[in-house]
């Protein structure tokens, strides 16, 4: 192999120890040739040589400015004029080498000035982290929260991958902030006292492990996207990525054309603000357009090979379905899943199919469906129950929740909050019930509402959620079991 890849870590806090590392690698016949994301080091094969390395901070980019290619070439040319050969760069750290013992002016000749540049770079990194951490926390709240307890989190691969990505991102960001702040604090004191800059010679295992995980998750993310797009034909997922792509494109155009220009900072600030607003507006517009496109989608779906229910399975004469929708997914825990909705003027029938990796995961999924069934009962009934208890009225609505007049009378003298909670418990207890009569004759079956029009059933590691018919009716059960191959 003419190249070698290494997981390592280079930042402003540890570059002198990396200079030594590159020297050792050159001694073994490997010259550093590229660094990706400060953590993936790519070496090219050379004859083993004794080389000196110099890593020099030179700020390349800020929020409003960026060195042009010509400026970087000029810096490189001058370094070469004094005896240093360019190897590569990692963000704002430029890596040069020369033959050991060869006389050359050091690239950095003043520690105070070097520290000023490092301070600028550290502040830039810290600003980015201070911006990222709250965003990560928001995303964590939105993604990880729903992964832990919900059906969606268990069945959706993207949510699971993004949850890992965010977790690793938060850990990396926090370690980086602590590391940089410590470095700045220590060295501001050193420079004030005329001492040398104190760099870290830590092996940075925490960073290395986090970066390995980060790269694994990124690769999984790409594989998931390709699999969803090509194999599962999940256009919704691809459309959801369009706003991100637009944001990246607009940001890249700003970096290429605005940052390196000679315009004033105030002009660039205005352009940056306009860029951000434009990217946001376009993203929202695309998002709305997506919803519109999806809402109007009436595709010619071929459901052969999918174990799903159609509205036509339950009526004598075939009707044209007004709208059909099939969505496939794959996740770490649920190897295969799809949702199908069949609509017509006669009603709607929903099927959610999941094939879990093992039975224990399938049981967990059933419990999640039950949990979500409970949540739906709370969501649908809380306000009405509160109103009824506050006003002391029992009406037909309460009858539909499963709460009898006797139950109501027993609770009405209690504190409203307590009465509502107890009423909800009664409703849940009456609605979410096991198929005790073994009508379905499967491993598990739970009705999820009072009129038994929602059910979750499990056979081995397969789980179905069904909605839209009376699933306690033996005739319906027979049709469903036949259609879903559950006999």
């Amino acid at each position, binding site marked *: 192999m003419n190249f070698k890849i290494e997981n390592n870590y280079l930042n402003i806090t540890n570059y002198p120890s990396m200079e030594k590392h590159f020297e050792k690698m050159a001694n073994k016949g490997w010259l550093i040739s590229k660094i990706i994301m400060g953590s993936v080091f790519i070496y090219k094969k050379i004859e083993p040589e004794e080389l000196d390395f110099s890593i020099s901070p030179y700020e390349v980019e800020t929020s409003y400015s960026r060195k042009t290619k*010509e400026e970087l070439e000029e*810096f490189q040319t*001058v370094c070469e004029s004094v005896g240093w050969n360019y190897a590569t760069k990692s963000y704002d750290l430029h890596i040069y080498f020369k033959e050991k013992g060869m006389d050359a*002016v*050091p690239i950095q*000749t003043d520690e105070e*000035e*070097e520290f000023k540049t490092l301070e600028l770079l550290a502040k830039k990194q810290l600003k980015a982290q201070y911006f990222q951490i709250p965003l990560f926390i928001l995303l964590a709240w939105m993604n990880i929260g729903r992964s832990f307890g919900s059906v969606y989190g268990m069945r959706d691969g993207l949510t699971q991958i993004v949850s890992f990505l965010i977790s690793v991102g938060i850990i990396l960001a926090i370690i980086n902030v602590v590391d940089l702040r410590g470095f700045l604090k220590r060295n501001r004191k050193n420079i004030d006292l005329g001492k040398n800059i104190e760099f870290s010679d830590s092996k940075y295992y925490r960073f290395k492990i986090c970066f390995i995980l980060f790269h694994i998750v990124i690769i999984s993310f790409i594989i998931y996207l390709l699999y969803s797009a090509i194999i599962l034909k999940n256009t919704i997922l691809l459309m959801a990525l369009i706003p991100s792509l637009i944001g990246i494109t607009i940001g890249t155009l700003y970096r290429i054309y605005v940052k390196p220009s000679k315009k004033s900072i105030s002009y660039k600030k205005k352009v940056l603000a306009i860029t951000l607003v434009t990217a946001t507006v376009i993203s929202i517009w695309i998002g709305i357009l997506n919803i519109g496109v999806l809402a109007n989608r009436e595709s010619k779906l071929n459901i052969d090979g999918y174990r799903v229910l159609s509205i036509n399975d339950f009526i004598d004469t075939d009707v044209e379905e007004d709208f059909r929708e099939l969505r496939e997914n794959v996740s770490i825990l649920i190897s295969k899943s799809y949702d199908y909705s069949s609509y017509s003027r006669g009603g709607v029938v929903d099927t959610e199919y999941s094939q879990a990796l093992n039975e224990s995961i399938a049981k967990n999924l059933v419990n999640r469906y039950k949990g979500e069934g409970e949540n739906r009962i709370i969501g649908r009934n809380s306000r009405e129950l509160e109103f009824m208890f506050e006003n002391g009225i029992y009406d037909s609505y309460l009858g539909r929740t499963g709460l009898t007049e006797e139950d109501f009378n027993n609770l009405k003298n209690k504190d409203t909050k307590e009465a509502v909670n107890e009423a909800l418990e009664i409703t849940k207890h009456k609605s979410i019930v096991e198929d005790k009569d073994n009508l379905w004759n499967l491993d598990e079956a739970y009705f999820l509402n009072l009129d038994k029009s929602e059910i979750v059933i499990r056979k081995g590691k397969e789980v179905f959620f069904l909605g839209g018919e009376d699933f306690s009716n033996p005739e319906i059960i027979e049709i469903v079991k036949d259609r879903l191959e559950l006999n």
Partner: protein
Amino acid sequence: MAKKALTQPMYYILLSLKEKRHGYEIMQFIEWLTEGRVKVGPGTLYSLLSRFEDDRYIDMVSDDDNKKTYIITDIGKEILDEEIERLSQLLEDARYVKGGNEDEFQNRK
């Protein structure tokens, strides 16, 4: 609060830009002027040139063949003159003490 003194490379870079010069010329000029005593490396030089340009101590006058040429501005000249004045006073104080005039301190009453 007193102004912070210029560092050695800051001082020599500003001094060398009394004439139009590009990066490599600045390094050579400083080495020549100090007879090799002071060397400014490219990392130090280009970081300072960026900062000086942002602070308007220097102006870029041309950008030919990937070589930016700079010259000191009036603000830069003022900063440099203040530094020269400060250094002169330091030198004067040192000469005074070394000239054996310290006794005056003991006899100041």
